[in-house]
């Protein structure tokens, strides 16, 4: 028993120590067995743990360690060799596994540690992202604020609301301490504090506009940080609130915006207002880029909104002005109407009142004229009569004209004898004309209808007026009146270029031309002729007076009859031609007038174009005579030939429709014949058409012919066709003056 070196312990020595050892070992083994169990349990729970193998080894080593300690329980006492063997094996195994575990742990512990660092890193990153998100959110919110602000600003067209809203919203969005708007004054030299955020009624601070800080802001389109101590930023009188960071931005005032600047001249440089924004000092905030951008955007929007508001104001003002003007015009019109009515009433009354005594004066003076009077008395009565006639005419003229101007004059349309009108005019004018030794000739075209529908009195008045003027303004010479139906071809007159009368089925246009050889009218006076009361320079030469209304009245009458009147004259001393065209109706029962404006009958090319037309030919020259006769015979006329003027006058009768004569033969006075023929045949119907055949191509001949009342002038030699066309023209119009 002494071979064993182990200390044989007997229960009685050191029992307590032994007991404690036994217990500790037991508990160690227990712990050692339960730790792997726990590990296994938790590993099983977590699916991700990557180092199972390591854990297994760890567990194994611990188990084995526990086993060793357990076996230690038996080795403290006497134990057999088997136990020793088991103990040794256990210890060996434990050693191996522990060493392996130790080795493996060397590998995995850095990994484990790095996992930790990565985790820390990710946490940091997450925190940073959170911060960034916060920033972005803020920005987005700011953007929303801008949109909302813009919307607010633009939803109103009232200037004050716009600005107030701007300031309020900006203040809210950016959490400003104070926000102020400085506007340029009328003079443009100062900026005046117009709007603030916190203060209710900004006192009228002004700063000069040319401060360097202001220039700096105005010259840049960005928001500029300025010093909190500069003039524009120190807006609180008390100085209590020192502002934090201050930013200023320019607000362009588009030129239509005329805040308090009404008469600003056109500037090429823009005007700006200044917006100043202050951050609260205690927040230690800084102006950030996105905030500055927000401010700039808002400033631009404000500018646009302001200009819109200004435009609206302008248009409202204009509309108000127009309405005022309308009202004023209406009033004026009503007053004018009242005045016209009053005048008409006055005229109507005066007309009657004035005419009655005039009538009495004229009637009684003419009666007085019939009685026995001394030459003195007769002279006096004649003067009275003449003056009262003039006065009566004046009254009539004025009354007519005023009624004409109102448009209250109506034409009295009725059927009347057109020829009679002309004859009447001629009769009225003849006495005066013969006193002045004027020759008056009347030519009515054969196609002129005898009866027409129109206002006879006014037509006669017009003709009489025109003819009367011709007589009045001619000292000697002749006056020729021609009347015919206006045809489409003849209407291409230079004078009537604006006037294209169209003959129709139940109306025709009468064209009357009065030509005189009197003092004429100078071309620049011609437009004035038809204006009321306007008289030309030549009034000094006139020996009779007039009111100057005559032509104005004629023009009105002619216009009422849907016509046109004009005067041509080559100048002073060259006479003048008055022409007018009026529209007259055709009385239904007569069909003849319709022939008047059928197109010109194409000339018969047969041998007998003018069957049986009785013609008288006067020519001294036998050959010419024979040739002319041959021409006319060829055309079917019944030709009588005479060779001298006396014979012509003797032979001519009202059967002859046309008389041809040589006007320029030295031995024969064709003019004299014409004059004598006019005397012989007073009635238009009976007098034959007088045509001069002449070889002379000068104007004098033509004028002379026209003057003596010839109806036509033809240039020799005459061809067959020409003779044919001439005859047809003559028979249609009774007038033909070939252009020479």
């Amino acid at each position: 028993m002494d071979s064993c070196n182990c200390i044989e312990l007997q229960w009685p020595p050191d029992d307590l120590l032994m007991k404690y050892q036994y217990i500790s070992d037991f508990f160690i083994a227990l712990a050692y067995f339960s730790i792997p169990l726990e590990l296994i349990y938790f590993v099983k729970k977590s699916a991700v743990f990557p180092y199972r193998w390591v854990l297994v080894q760890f567990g194994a080593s611990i188990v084995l360690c526990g086993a060793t300690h357990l076996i230690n329980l038996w080795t403290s006492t006497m134990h057999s060799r088997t136990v020793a063997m088991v103990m040794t094996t256990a210890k060996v195994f434990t050693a191996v596994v522990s060493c392996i575990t130790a080795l493996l742990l060397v590998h995995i512990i850095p990994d484990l540690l790095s996992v930790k660092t990565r985790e820390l890193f990710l946490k940091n990153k997450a925190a940073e992202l959170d911060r960034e998100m916060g920033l972005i959110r803020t920005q987005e919110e700011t953007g929303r604020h801008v949109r909302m602000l813009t919307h607010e600003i633009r939803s109103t067209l009232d200037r004050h609301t716009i600005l107030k809203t701007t300031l309020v919203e900006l203040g809210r969005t950016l959490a400003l301490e104070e926000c102020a708007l400085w506007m340029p004054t009328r003079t443009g030299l100062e900026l005046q504090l117009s709007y603030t955020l916190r203060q209710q009624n900004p006192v009228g601070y002004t700063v000069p506009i040319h401060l360097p800080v202001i220039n700096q802001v105005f010259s840049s389109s960005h928001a500029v940080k300025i010093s909190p101590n500069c003039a524009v930023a120190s807006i609180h009188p008390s100085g209590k609130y020192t502002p934090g960071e201050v930013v200023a931005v320019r607000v362009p005032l588009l030129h239509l915006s005329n805040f308090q600047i009404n008469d600003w001249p056109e500037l090429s440089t823009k005007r700006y207002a200044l917006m100043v924004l202050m951050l609260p000092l205690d927040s230690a905030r800084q102006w950030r880029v996105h905030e500055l951008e927000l401010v700039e955007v808002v400033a631009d929007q404000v500018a646009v909104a302001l200009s819109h508001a200004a435009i609206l104001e302008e248009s409202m003002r204009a509309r108000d002005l127009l309405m005022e003007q309308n009202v004023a015009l209406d009033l004026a019109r009503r007053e004018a109407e009242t005045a016209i009515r009053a005048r008409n009433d006055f005229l109507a009354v005066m007309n009657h009142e004035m005419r009655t005594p005039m009538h009495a004066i004229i009637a009684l003076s003419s009666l007085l004229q019939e009685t026995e009077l001394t030459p003195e008395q007769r002279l006096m009565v004649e003067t009275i009569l003449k003056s009262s006639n003039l006065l009566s005419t004046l009254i009539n003229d004025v009354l007519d004209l005023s009624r004409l101007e109102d448009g209250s004059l109506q034409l009295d349309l009725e059927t009347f004898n057109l020829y009679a009108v002309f004859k009447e005019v001629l009769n009225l004018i003849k006495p005066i004309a013969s006193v002045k030794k004027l020759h008056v000739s009347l030519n009515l075209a054969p196609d002129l209808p005898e009866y027409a529908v129109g206002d006879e009195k006014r037509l006669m008045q017009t003709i009489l007026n025109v003819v009367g003027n011709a007589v009045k303004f001619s000292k000697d010479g002749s006056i020729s009146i021609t009347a015919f139906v206006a045809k489409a071809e003849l209407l291409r007159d230079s004078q009537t270029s604006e006037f294209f009368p169209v003959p129709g089925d139940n109306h025709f246009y009468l064209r009357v031309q009065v030509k005189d050889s009197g003092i004429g009218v100078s071309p620049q006076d011609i437009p004035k002729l038809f204006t009321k009361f306007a008289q030309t320079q030549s009034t000094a030469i006139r020996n009779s007076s007039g009111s100057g209304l005559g032509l104005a009245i004629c023009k009105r009458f002619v216009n009422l009859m849907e016509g046109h009147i004009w005067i041509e004259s080559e100048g002073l001393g060259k006479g003048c031609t008055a022409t007018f065209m009026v529209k007259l109706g055709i009385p239904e029962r007569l069909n003849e007038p319709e022939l008047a404006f059928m197109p010109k009958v194409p000339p018969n090319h047969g041998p007998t174009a003018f069957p049986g037309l009785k013609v008288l030919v006067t020519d001294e020259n036998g050959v010419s005579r024979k040739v002319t006769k041959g021409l006319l015979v060829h055309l079917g006329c019944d030709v009588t030939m005479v060779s001298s003027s006396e014979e012509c006058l003797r032979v001519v009768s009202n059967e002859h429709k046309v008389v041809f004569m040589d006007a320029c033969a030295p031995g024969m006075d064709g003019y004299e014949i014409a004059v004598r023929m006019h005397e012989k045949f007073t009635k238009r119907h009976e007098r034959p058409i007088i045509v001069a055949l002449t070889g002379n191509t000068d104007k004098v001949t033509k004028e002379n012919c026209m003057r003596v009342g010839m109806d036509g002038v033809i240039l020799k030699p005459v061809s067959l066709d020409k003779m044919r066309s001439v005859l047809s023209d003559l028979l249609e119009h009774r007038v033909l003056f070939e252009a020479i």
Partner: protein
Amino acid sequence: MDLVQLQRQLVEYRTSLYHEGFLDEQFTQLQELQDENNPDFVVEVVSLFFEDSERLLNELTKALEQQSIDFKRVDAHVHQLKGSSSSIGAQRVQKVCIAFRNYCEEQNVEGCLKCLQQVRHEYSLVKTKLESMFQLEQQILSAGGSIPM
């Protein structure tokens, strides 16, 4: 001679008269006036012209031989002659007459005498021409043909 040849000859002759200025369109007009009612119109007119002209030329000669020339009268005659010649289309005669009248106005005796000579000359020329033309026409008519226009 053959009828056709005669007619052609007439046409040529007439054309030549126009070309040489002896006649102008007025003569054509005269010819147009000739129809079945007036078959000899042209001949009649021309004969009348000849008579008239000869008379006038004699008068003119007499008037211009006077000591104191009555230019008015001369002018009157020339005027007549001018009228007649223009009526039948004797162009050259007419032209000389126009010149003659100018000289009368100027009362230029030399000019007048010279013109008288010229007028006589032209007149005899045109008379001969016209007479031969009428002869041709007569030949054609007697040959049974018609006068071409």
